[in-house]
């Protein structure tokens, strides 16, 4: 672990090698990054927003939007670059490779993967490559979701398949260069692949992936198939057949052999997984979208992995729909966004078995992703869940909003209206920094690179 500072940026090379490193990826924010990747521990320069094209807005295409977020930048709080990729793909999640040079933006609809070069100029990402044949190469996996960095390669979670557009799916591995490596199907009842079905469910569904290398653990969650995540949210809620097709499982895997070990019942669509950072904290959180619960996946006193419901989020009868969570670098706090009421909630998770809500604030009429800086002081929120799940009419606000957390309250710093700016529906956010690549901001006089010590 070493740090670098360029101007005001810090880089934290967690668990990697050499004094500094390059980037990685995964589901949400700096504290959710792959442990194999360098972290930006100081002031980030950019937020990259993987944005869905929106009918009737601007060029209607998916695009990577780059926002300057360093207060020292003359462009602070402004969009400094957009890169349209052609078509709408249901842009959703994106993640860096382990060297943080490439950002993989996946499309849940078309299953295309856009590989952006973020290292040649951190402020001007370029489209490097498009992986068009993900479905064919993987043997029928549809809907690449999480792009998670492993050393020299990317682990992509699928959400669906090309046979029935349902939820049975697989993990798919690629090299950093974009070459297909392997498909790992989620365990199903007829082929648990040696895993233990600990409860009633083994649905074969997928969503997010995280790893705890020191425990040789990989962990996956489960959402729903293409038909559901693509259709109008209201239509789906009224379709009793569709509502039966959500994931109710979390699977823990042997990371090294990629073999599933235990299938846990976690009912109600467990989505994002966030693992603790402390070297003794062998646990991860996930939240269930439909049942509004926080679950802990943890190693018990005998070192066996277990799953336990540990808290309720809001009033489940009102379907607040927790969609994203973000853990602080010290493992003490967990932000939880609930789509339907537009709120973010802060839980004290210092005792991970007894999370307590300590703060909440409405961010907008709808909310989806949250990303926090490594020091926990800056939080960024976006609004879009899925193209056809977002609210309709006046409630369909589309924004990136930045806040400072002062320990007591969130104070707004800037906001960008993604419809007024003709951009679309903003989804995942990833942080960029000049210091990662030994670059200096073009307009800045401070070009020195300093060791933090």
């Amino acid at each position: 672990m070493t740090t670098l500072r360029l101007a005001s940026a810090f880089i934290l090379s967690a668990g990697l090698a050499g004094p500094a490193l390059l980037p990685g990826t995964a589901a949400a924010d700096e504290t959710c990054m792959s442990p194999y990747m360098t972290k930006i521990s100081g002031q980030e320069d950019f937020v990259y927003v993987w944005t869905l094209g929106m009918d009737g807005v601007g060029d209607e295409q998916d695009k990577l939007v780059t926002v300057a977020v360093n207060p020292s930048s003359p462009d602070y709080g402004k969009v400094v670059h957009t890169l349209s990729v052609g078509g709408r793909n249901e842009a959703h999640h994106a993640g860096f490779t382990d060297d943080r040079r490439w950002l993989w933006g996946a499309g849940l609809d078309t299953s295309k993967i856009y590989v952006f070069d973020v290292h040649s100029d951190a402020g001007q990402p370029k489209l490097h490559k498009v992986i068009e044949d993900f479905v064919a190469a993987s043997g029928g996996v549809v809907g690449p979701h999480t792009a998670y960095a492993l050393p020299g390669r990317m682990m992509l979670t699928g959400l669906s398949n090309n046979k029935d557009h349902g939820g049975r799916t697989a993990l798919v591995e690629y090299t950093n260069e974009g070459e297909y490596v392997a498909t790992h199907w989620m365990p199903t009842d007829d082929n648990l692949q040696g895993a233990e079905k600990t409860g009633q469910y083994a649905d074969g569904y997928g969503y997010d992936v995280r790893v705890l290398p020191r425990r040789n653990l990989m962990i996956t969650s489960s959402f729903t198939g293409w038909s559901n995540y693509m259709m109008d949210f209201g239509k789906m809620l009224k379709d009793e057949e569709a509502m039966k097709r959500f994931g109710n499982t979390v699977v823990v895997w042997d990371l090294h052999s990629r073999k599933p070990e235990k299938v846990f019942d976690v009912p109600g669509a467990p989505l994002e997984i966030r693992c603790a950072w402390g070297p003794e904290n062998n646990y991860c959180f996930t939240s269930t979208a439909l049942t509004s619960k926080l679950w802990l996946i943890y190693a018990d006193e005998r070192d066996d992995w277990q799953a336990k419901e540990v808290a309720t989020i809001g009033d489940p009868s009102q379907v607040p729909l927790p969609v994203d969570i973000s853990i602080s670098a010290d493992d003490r706090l967990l932000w939880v966004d609930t789509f339907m009421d537009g709120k973010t909630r802060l839980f004290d998770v210092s005792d991970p078995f007894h999370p307590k809500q300590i703060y909440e604030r409405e961010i907008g009429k709808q909310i989806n992703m949250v990303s926090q800086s490594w020091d926990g002081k800056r939080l960024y929120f976006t609004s879009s869940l899925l193209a056809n799940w977002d609210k309709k009419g006046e409630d369909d606000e589309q924004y990136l909003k930045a806040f400072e957390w002062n320990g007591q309250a969130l104070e707004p710093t800037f906001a960008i209206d993604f419809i007024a700016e003709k951009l679309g529906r903003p989804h995942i956010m990833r942080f960029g920094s000049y210091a990662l690549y030994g670059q200096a901001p073009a307009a800045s006089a401070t070009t020195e690179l300093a060791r933090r010590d």
Partner: protein
Amino acid sequence: MKRIFAAAAVVLLSTLGAAHEPLPPGYGELGYALPAPGSYRLPPLGRAADGEVLDTRGETRSLGALLDGRVTVLSFIYQSCHDTSGCPLATTVLHRIRQDTAREPELAERLRLISLSFDPDRDTPEHMAHLAHNFRFVEGGSDWLFLTTASQEKLQPILDAYGQAMMRERGPDGEETGDLAHVLRVFLIDSERRIRNIYSPSFLHPDLVLNDVRTLFAEAGPDPAHAPAHTAHAATAGPGDDKTGYERPDYRTRSLSLAVRRGRPMDLLANLQDPPLGLPPVPVPADAPVTQKTVAIGRKLFFDRRLSLNGTFSCAMCHIPEQGFASNELKTAVGIEGRTVRRNAPGLFNAAYSAPLFHDGRETRLEHQVWEPLLAANEMGNPSIASVVEKVRRLPDYRGLFEDAFGRGPDMETIGQALASYERTLNCGDSPFDRWYYGGEPSAIGDAVERGFAVFMGKGGCVGCHLIGPEHALFTDGRLHNTGIGYAASMAREPTTRRIQVAPGVALDVAAALIGKVSEAPPSDLGRYEITRDPDDRWKYKTPGLRNLTLTAPYMHDGSIATLAEVVAFYDGGGVENPLLDPSIRRLDLSAREQTDLVAFLEALTGRCDDLVADAFAAPVGDASADDPPWWE
């Protein structure tokens, strides 16, 4: 080495984040049990690149040649590196591997260790020789080479090929500190020069690396990936993702893997020429003859997802073979980009006999009908006929097929004929009812079915619309009727709450106002009226055939009824009262037993469809490939 460790400790104390960051496992115990060598796969990660390197004597060597014939562990290092999680770790682990292999000469012989510097300016061959000298004390063990390069120019292509990005660090005044920022990657390379694993500090450990080395050596034996994991068969009836009983707390999954969804081709044309028991001769238009070749093209087109605007949809995404060529997973269909389709995807078994076509009866020929989903903006979304024809014309895997089958290339007529040809073979009869009624097998059905048949013919009056002939039966009058379901959907008030299943055995009553916030305005559906503009045709829909109903839930034109028992109860209650209700729909006052018997009868109408489904499983699914041509110039 001592000096390096001391310098690194200072850096370690300066870290952010967790107050105490432990040393990487490579310096100590791994901390977990490894899977048995050979019990897992290490899929190739690409080719290990060649390059021009220098050995400790300063002689030029080919890196590629050094990799050939042995398993290699390759580590990029530089000698002035301080980071305990970096180069010193890699060198320590290689040293420990060498120590371990000293006890296993047979393994040691087949393994080579390489430390390659990425600092040619300072790590000269002499410096590398000095480093090698530090490790000279191990007796035996695998060969360990310490290599460098002649210059940055010689080094850079190697770094690029191995994805080893590197950045020179600078001090406060912009001067180079001599530190190189890089991601530590150690490569495992097999004897055929393929990269098989890439290690980072969090799991770079001698035990783990040697476990992988042994796994590579075990590859001569049976491949665990190809070992028969299980012998389950693909279910040809019902979704592999069975959700029956999901409403109940005791629900248990019975999911099937997609890998077993494999089938075998059948002679589809024979199924048209000699249709199964209970079905009449298949009507084939004189201008659209069906041949083995036209069927084969139609089958290929049917499963080709490239035939939609954005490559996500084939006919089979809504007409799923094991779900009766319908969809059990949705009440009403969903098209490209998730767009709303108003009606339930109808099953395609026996579509050859279906006239008219669509729930509102707006088409009369399959050749015409198949174009509508291709062109509908909310189904497959193609913007024009030309866009479909051009795609088919340009796809290399269709080259020559149309010319061979039709005497001309793909066009609106031949594409329509090909798809219709395939659909005309999907004939499924020979049900228990057929064997009893037409086949003269008294034991083909039980008493309940026979009693149900009596209700169907008599008190229920079902046969008035669902016709049965003396030699065969399609169970439809081919006409359109108002049952009131469409009327209710258009005219009834919305409930204030709606029960929503959020997990097995867990349902919530959710306010309609809340659902409304995330709902598009539901499209209206006026049925046959939309075709004829005759007000009397409002909410009329086609009488469906009743064969293979057990495969095609949910039911009715909008999928609004989940089970056959509920369908029977609906008709027993006389449908939904409305001014245009079909006069043949009236209260039936069937007893509970009569209703159960009627369901038993309907269930006896499911034929032997397994071979058709297995054939569909064997059909290739068309997905976008790297070789696809551009669709437009």
